[in-house]
């Protein structure tokens, strides 16, 4: 092999780039997020009524689109009524409907969002966020 030293250095750089995430994560056990649903409002509900406005798998994938739509409907179209997947009527309101049940920001919203490295920008407008929520919040993000 000609210029073996330089070639091997190049291959080591390639190897480090390929395996960067492995070394970065080493020694840190990533906890799989488990959003908690044990708020007082949810506990009060009977078992069969413990459903969101849409089924859970759909909400896990699409909640950001739903919240965006809700904002547009409520603020731009003055439409405050939403009919859930089971025919139940809901008032379109982040603070009065969503957060009524999911009142545990750190254990619900932030559980996944910090794992994903995403900062939701709900709180840019919704100033009534309880102070204790701010503790676990991310410094920067998208």
């Amino acid at each position, binding site marked *: 092999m*000609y210029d073996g030293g330089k070639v091997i250095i190049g291959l080591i750089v390639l190897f480090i780039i390929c395996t960067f995430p*492995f070394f970065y994560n*080493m020694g840190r056990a990533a906890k799989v997020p488990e959003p908690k649903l044990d708020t007082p409002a949810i506990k009060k509900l009977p078992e069969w009524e413990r459903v969101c406005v849409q089924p859970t*798998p759909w909400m896990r994938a699409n909640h950001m689109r739903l919240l965006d739509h809700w904002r547009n409907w409520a603020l731009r179209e003055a439409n405050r009524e939403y009919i859930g997947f089971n025919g139940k009527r809901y008032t379109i309101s982040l603070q009065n409907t969503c957060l009524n049940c999911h009142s545990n920001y750190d254990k619900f919203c932030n559980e996944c969002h910090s*794992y*994903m490295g995403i900062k939701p920008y709900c709180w840019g407008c919704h100033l009534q966020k309880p102070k204790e929520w701010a503790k676990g919040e991310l410094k920067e993000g*998208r």
Partner: protein
Amino acid sequence: MSFNLAWYCSFFLVLVLIFVPIIGVTAGLEVVFGIIIPYLAILIFFVGMVYKVVIWARTPVPFRIPTTCGQQKSLPWLKRTLRDRLENPFTTWEVIGRMILEVFFFRSLFRNIKAQLRDEPSYPEKKRLVYWSSKWLWLGAIAFHYSFLVILIRHLWLFTEPVPSFVRLVEHIDSFFQLYVPAVYISGIVLIVALTYLLLRRIFDPKLRYISLFSDYLPLFWLLAIGISGILMRYFFKVDMTAVKELTLGLASLHPHIPKEHIGVIFYVHLFLVSSFFAYFPFTKLAHMAGIFMSMTRNLANNNRAVRHVNPWNYPVRVKTYLDQENDWREDMAKFGLPLEISVEEAKKLGKEKLEELADEEAARLYNKLSGNRHAPVFPETEFLRKQIKEE
């Protein structure tokens, strides 16, 4: 391969690559498509790249063959500008500068020119041949490569916990316009536009169409499929990204498992396209990722006129010295009054073997002086001839 065959074969191959994971995951083979194939792919990618690089590194490049386009270093009064030094490097630092221009700014593509016949009424032929700068390939290539790099860096969020700040910064800048929810990444749009341009220029430029092969269309379709599947997954057929990160982080930390939450099939399509692409990577033209650093027309200093480069497999040549000439024709040379290093009487005293020995030493000295060799050379052909003579 004709255009039609190349085009359709590569197109349908990518279609097959899309349908394989759809069928596989529907049949419940999540472990195969989510764990086994990605691991195999990264293994093939790395081993393949090493294999390729080692093959290149074992190929000797005995001479300096850089392709240059600036004034080379010459006599002191021939001035060289910075541009000349970068286009026609003489020292290692100039070579490094040249490589940086090539790797980061695609210098050689920037130099593209295009020949065109322009109307010129004042000319007898009414036409004039002009060569003008053509930057479109450069623009398409640089847009594609940089958006691909940004996308690769952004994807690190899937493999790291906590997400490193530079990844977050890249995401932040990339979603600068804050359009739509989730925010549209500029790099995704640029990637698709650039790839589409690079594909269309192969299809619609007759000259390019003539020289384009199956292996040119395939990576373009493949990358388009990867980009489109990723965009569809992010904005349209949404999947549970927490579960996706659980899977990818498991892969990165070598604790692979399939999460219990369902992940949409579009994710497996994207993952399979990416995995198969990485496995395909080292064995095709895409290996230019490593090859650019090893291309001998770019990474060598143009110092042929200042430094002697000896071919590494040249065996030492036993040159015929003046003493050899003397040994063969001493009496005749003396008769004609030609100068002698060893006179006829002295030669008789020394004997034939001693004279041969002296001639060998002289040849070795000459060889060492020319080659810069510090060790006593072995002249294989002389040894061979001597052996033959002895045997006879």
